[in-house]
């Protein structure tokens, strides 16, 4: 029997910190096994070798913020059979989506002496705003064990087993004392689990870096922050306007508290 052809893997970066694709290199124990199962066709952070598509599995980190990238993602999609968006930037626009609430030209003037040299779009948008995405793995950064699950599931031809529940469930399972009970505002009740509830475990409130969980109720949590923990409206805006500022559920909540 001839050997089975290995699936071709490509990894792409758009506007991001590179952390989510770095997560693959951070799988120190599993990296060589993973690359043994695939044909690494394109992964610029790790290799000079660059192969043209088509690709079977494509991992994309970063958001779309330039006209060049808006064109490139369409080409990457055409070349890819199964496309996975990795992380907050790719899934919702990332921290750089804070520009979506302001005039980006003010931002350019604040950072660069020659605004005329800078080409950028008004908004930072998720991959799904431009092309069909086959699977979204959330987190800022993603959890590397979940990344391995997504790759393994693809190789086995099944759906990844990634629970959509809140940080609270993982927090309870770790046996933590609820930080809200101790008076610390925590986005855990409305935030997608997957990080392992590390913030409450380290005695701080969750700051929502895995984005909204399925069916969250941010308005109820905001009322709790305001009425029981004395958080001012401006604080509520900033609490929901961070790494998932552009996710619809968090975006609506932050805008509801803006004067």
């Amino acid at each position: 029997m001839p050997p089975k052809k290995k699936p071709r893997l490509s990894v792409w970066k758009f506007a991001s910190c590179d952390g989510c694709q770095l997560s693959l290199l951070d799988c120190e124990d599993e990296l060589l096994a993973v690359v043994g199962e695939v044909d690494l066709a394109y992964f610029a952070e790790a290799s000079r070798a660059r192969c043209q598509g088509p690709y079977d599995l494509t991992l994309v980190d970063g958001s779309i913020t330039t006209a060049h990238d808006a064109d490139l993602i369409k080409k990457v999609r055409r070349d890819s059979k199964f496309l996975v968006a990795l992380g907050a930037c790719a899934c919702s626009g990332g921290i750089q989506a804070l520009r979506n609430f302001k005039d980006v030209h003010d931002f350019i003037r604040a950072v660069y002496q020659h605004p005329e040299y800078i080409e950028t779009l008004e908004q930072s948008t998720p991959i799904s705003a431009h092309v069909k995405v086959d699977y979204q793995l959330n987190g800022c950064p993603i959890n590397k064990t979940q990344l391995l699950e997504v790759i393994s599931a693809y190789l086995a031809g099944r759906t990844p087993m990634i629970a959509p529940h809140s940080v609270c469930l993982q927090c309870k399972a770790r046996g933590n004392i609820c930080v809200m009970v101790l008076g610390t505002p925590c986005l855990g009740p409305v935030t997608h689990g997957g990080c392992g509830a590390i913030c409450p475990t380290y005695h701080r409130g969750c700051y929502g870096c895995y984005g909204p969980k399925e069916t969250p109720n941010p308005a109820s949590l905001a009322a709790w922050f305001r009425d029981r923990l004395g958080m001012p409206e401006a604080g509520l805006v900033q609490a929901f306007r961070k790494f998932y500022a552009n996710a619809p559920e968090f975006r609506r909540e932050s805008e509801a508290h803006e004067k």
Partner: protein
Amino acid sequence: MKSRSIKVSFLARVEGEGGLQIRIKGGSVAEVKLVIFEPPRFFEAFLRGRQFTEAPDITCRICGICPVAYLMSAAHAMEDALGVKVSGPLRDLRRLLYCGEWIESHALHVFMLHAPDFLGYQDAIQMAADHPEVVKMGLRLKKIGNQVVTLVGGREIHPINVRVGGFYRTPAKQELAPLAEELKWAREAALETVRWVGRLPMPAFETDYALVTLRHEAEYPCNEGRVVSNKGLNVPVQEYDAHFLEEHVAYSNALHSKLKGRGPYFAGPLARYNLNFDKLTPLAQEAARAAGLGREVRNPFQSIIVRAVETLYAVEEALRIIEAYERPEEPAVRVEPRAGVGYAATEAPRGLLYHRYRLDDSGAILEAKIVPPTSQNQKIIEQDLRRFVEGRLDLPDEKLTWQCEQMVRNYDPCISCATHFLKIKIGRE
């Protein structure tokens, strides 16, 4: 005379997106451009209006490889503005966290990103087919660095446990004990790494660089120190802006830094090593000498050896801190908002990282300035490439292009950081 042009559209094995364009005309190099097309993300702009407490968590999102550097520079700059000093075990824990990042980032660069160039492999995975034990050793070293960051910081990328004034939670002494066992293996592995990179074929290339680094009277620099150069600069970080300037050029989304009155300068492991050799541990000094490094290193390709020496140092320093550690009573010192300006520079794995913030009396950020190491090194990379290519014009394009890439990777450029960076294009006319 034959003219040509060499272009690398997408520089590989660097962190972020950039390229290189080199135009050769009449037997000399007409132009070298390090082109940074990493999309700008405007951190300094959207920090305005945020609370001082948020700066560490937000700025660490600039870089997935050196988030600890951002956490540290941001926290120290805020503490400078607010008149707070973090000392004792909290200071030591911060240094331990940074040691973890140096180990993780240096191991990644030495084994995964740079060594393949010296041996002619496209990547570490190809290298692993011929050198499996070396690559496995590198991965385990990297893992141990990440374990240190994870234990102290909560996770390896974008750690969550750092705050202005200290930490949210400090580890108990016994929590650190398993790390010490791993670090003892890492000390031997780091020694072996220094020996291994010392045997790599080194291209001959030397320059009398202007080097800029932190210098601290009592220790190899990490979180604190004066900003010094080998050309006479020695100032507190609060005077940084009086001595350095940033320029915006048309072909790059990253600003270029210059030392006023001098021009381009070199930040990073080579600068740290040359100006702080006396602060390395005896074992690290001895390993460096045995690997063929002098007291001064002027060949940027040898930066791979310096990274290995620093990895050994960081492992030893981490062990020292863990051994001496006693859990403090409080995880952080108390901070109260007040109006003011705060400055800090810390040593990211790839060089000096400067932050400056101006706050109002409620602790809101009015203005932020961040100068990452790769911004500082862009000019010197271009300068190096010009001289390097001029000495190698007889090489065929493919070989010359790869060697230029290897030269750029001497700097471990972090393009995501600098864009506030690699294609290589060599044009022969």
